[in-house]
């Protein structure tokens, strides 16, 4: 018996932020598009089990921590009562609202959305096993692979226990443990740790490396670490997890610290957040000319074309950094190429945001990377203690730093730590992309009183002329 067979101009496999951005643009450009995912609506990990639900919960965390701080300003609240099922329901309703909206946008664009799992038969066709249990063959002219990534598991760590969670399980918010160990000091671990800590869990973070959030500049991390040190029970650096044993009512974890000593501690639950791996297996890629590298990322060129001329790959499956906004941009690039454009993926800056409290955001060149490259840069740091707006928020712990090219004064990178850093970084991304120079930022009027002024003032500091900070230029 032969399967049902249909044709499409463009098949997009995976409907996360990269996949649906690609599918929608393709439809807008007049292509006949089929979008394939097992979920009921587009959204992918980001909307169902990632960015969106975590941000909903982090908003709650922020509210709780501000309510606590209000005591210093003369306002006291009684201890919050946490109705976990209601909180879960609200978070789920946010997810449902957004994914449902994407489903409608998909229909309005006449994108053919198939719920199923696709594998490649060859370079022109897919086999789709639908969620409904049918099998069909889809012949495509071009395909965009946007299958994303999944959390890495640790060797020797049980995966079948509800006490050992990955990020998806942690976001499901089944129970509120009294204590929790977060394995991994990256952004996922710190964000989810912040959520659980604010809801009353005693959170411990363990990180193998000597610092949290590898990739970001240490002076920014220091500001965040100070706050996290009080929010979390403990942060263990340069410490590895030797093994995790699941007991009846908790887990027993054996650590090895940097100097070799071993210790053992008990927690009610463990969250494993040590990174993500691309979803490049079980896709039938071996039936195509698509190639993967040693980390299982699909190899792509600047246009996001794989080794197979008819197949493009975008998002997490196509390489670091694994970020939704990078995926969406890549998706649009790939579709523009498919539509005959000369587009390439060539960002000068991909913003990274950690939605902790305070938020940490950076883009473009970091100071440490500049050092590594032996590149001559000038760095300015504007402490938020000098920002009026920060003072009104009771948050003077932030920092806005800019990395300039010493010769041209061009903005090469920006790092911001402080409440709202994630929103503030966009101006910096634009500055880097537009090749703005320090004068451009300094001469752009920023509204007062806002945190965005810290960007302008930080730029003025290059000339020793920041208004709210006295740091005269060193004479040469």
């Amino acid at each position, binding site marked *: 018996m032969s399967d049902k067979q249909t044709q499409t101009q463009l098949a997009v496999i995976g409907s996360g932020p990269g996949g649906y951005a690609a599918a929608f643009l393709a439809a807008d450009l007049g292509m006949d598009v089929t979008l394939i995912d097992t979920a009921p609506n587009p959204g992918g990990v980001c909307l169902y089990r990632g960015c969106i639900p975590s941000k909903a919960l982090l908003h709650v965390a922020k509210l709780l921590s501000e309510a606590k701080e209000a005591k210093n300003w003369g306002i006291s609240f009684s201890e919050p009562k946490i109705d976990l099922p209601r909180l879960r329901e609200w978070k789920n309703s946010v997810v449902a609202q957004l994914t449902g909206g994407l489903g409608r946008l998909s229909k309005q664009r006449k994108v053919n959305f198939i719920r199923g799992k696709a594998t490649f038969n060859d370079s022109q066709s897919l086999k789709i096993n639908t969620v409904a249990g049918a099998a069909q063959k889809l012949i495509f002219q071009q395909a965009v692979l946007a299958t994303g990534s999944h959390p890495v598991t640790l060797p020797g760590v049980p995966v079948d226990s509800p006490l050992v969670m990955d990020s998806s399980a942690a976001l499901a918010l089944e129970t509120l443990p009294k204590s929790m160990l977060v394995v991994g000091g990256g952004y996922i671990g710190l964000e989810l740790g912040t959520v659980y800590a604010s809801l009353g869990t005693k959170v411990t973070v363990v990180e193998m490396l000597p610092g949290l959030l590898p990739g970001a500049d240490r002076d920014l991390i220091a500001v965040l670490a100070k706050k996290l040190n009080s929010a979390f029970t403990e942060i263990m650096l340069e410490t590895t997890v030797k093994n995790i044993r699941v007991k009846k009512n908790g887990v027993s974890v054996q650590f090895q610290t940097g100097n070799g000593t071993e210790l053992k501690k008990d927690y009610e639950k463990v969250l494993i957040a040590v990174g993500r791996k691309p979803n490049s297996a079980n896709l039938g890629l071996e039936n195509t000319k698509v190639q993967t590298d040693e980390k299982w990322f699909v*190899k792509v060129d600047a246009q996001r074309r794989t080794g197979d001329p008819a197949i493009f790959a975008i998002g997490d499956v196509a390489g*670091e950094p694994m970020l939704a906004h990078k995926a969406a941009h890549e998706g649009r690039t790939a579709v523009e190429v498919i539509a005959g454009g000369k587009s390439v993926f060539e960002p*000068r800056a991909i913003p990274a945001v950690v939605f902790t409290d305070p938020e940490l955001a950076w883009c473009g060149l970091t100071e440490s990377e500049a050092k590594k490259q032996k590149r001559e840069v000038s760095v300015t740091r504007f402490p938020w203690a000098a920002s009026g707006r920060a003072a009104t928020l009771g948050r003077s712990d932030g920092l806005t730093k800019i990395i300039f090219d010493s010769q041209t004064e061009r903005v090469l990178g920006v790092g911001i730590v402080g409440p709202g850093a994630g929103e503030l970084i966009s101006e910096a991304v634009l500055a880097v992309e537009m090749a703005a120079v320090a004068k451009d930022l300094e001469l752009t009027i920023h509204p007062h009183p806002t945190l965005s002024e810290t960007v302008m003032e930080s730029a003025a500091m290059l000339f020793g002329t920041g208004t709210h900070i006295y740091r005269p230029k060193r004479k040469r």
Partner: protein
Amino acid sequence: MVKEIKLPEVGENVESGEIAKLLVSVGNVVDLEQPVLEFETDKAVVDVPSPYTGKITEIFVAVGDRVKIGDLLMKVETENMKSPVPVTEEEAVIPLTKAVEEFPAPEAGETLPGTEVVAAEKPQVSAAPEILREVAPASPSVRRFARELGVEIDYVSGSGPGGRITLDDVKAFTKLLVSGEKKPAGSGLFFETLPEFSRFGEIDTQPMSTVRKKTAEHLSYAWATIPHVTQFDKADITDLEKMRKQYSAAVENAGGKLTMTAILLKIVAAALKLFPQFNASVDMERKRIIFKKYFNIGVAVDTGRGLLVPVIRQVDRKNIRELSIELTALAEKARNRKLSPDDLQGGNFSVSNLGGIGGTYFTPVVNAPEVAVLGVSRSSMQPVYNDGQFQPKLMLPLSLSYDHRIIDGADAVRFLRWVVEALEKPFLILLAG
């Protein structure tokens, strides 16, 4: 340690070339960046510098060898000879500056485009994020514009603050590229500084209209890139003119004007079928000729805005009456500014009839990427010696300019002769066209 010297990238579209000269021999000690050989591409001779300090131990190429980018050229013994800059194996293929010496600097004191830049990065299959590489200071829209023009943004020098590259910088660079790479040396497409004319008398300065600007740029490009030759001939249209007059009323009733241009369109379409190299385009980048299986012909129209060349499609499938009607409508559209960009695209050959104004012969410019153009001048009564006596004949002067890169002189004569004969004996169109 023994290191390899490979042929680095030397510029866009350069994949191979010849070894022109060896500048070192085995046993020589070379410094970092010291030229070790001269490499000759179709465009220029460039020095290949040593990426290391050390002693040449082996040379794998000889003068005259054809080599490709990445080919092994020499080996260098670098032990105990510290290079001033640490160089890793990956960096061994070091970038060369592009051969831009022939480009004049846009302004005195400014750096030459490309003299300080890393070589073009060809899209490589890799999963690594590419955001941390050295990047040209240009906004995303300017980068996209450059890419669409096929310009490597890294070679463009910026005029903005911090060397920022503007849209105009890219445009100016494109003009340099066109003039520097694609034009025979000597003739000037880039602009000489004009004298201050007001010193000599009263002047009135007007900005160029869009059409004028486009015409100027396009014709400069065509003139600079196409080696033009113009072939002249004349046709006896005494009989044809009688027929034209006889049928012009009928065509006029149908809404068209039966002109010599309309008749020529039909004849040229037939000629293009017989001489396919006139219905072609040259792709110098990929070294190939594109033959077209369709017959669209542009007709130069003099409008209030300047010269426009609307295109009549599938001329071979239309009769002269239909062509007359379409041509009349198109010319009308051109004069009323109603032409769409579509109307101006897709031509294979152009006809420019200046006979309505006068003149004998002229040398039309080929409308690139077409490869030939037929110029038509005013017909006049001339004595033609025939059967022992002079007879008055109505003679039509014709000028065929063609792209000598793909059309040989003999073919051009044959083509134009065929057109002349078809004008004299229109039955030829039915017979052979």
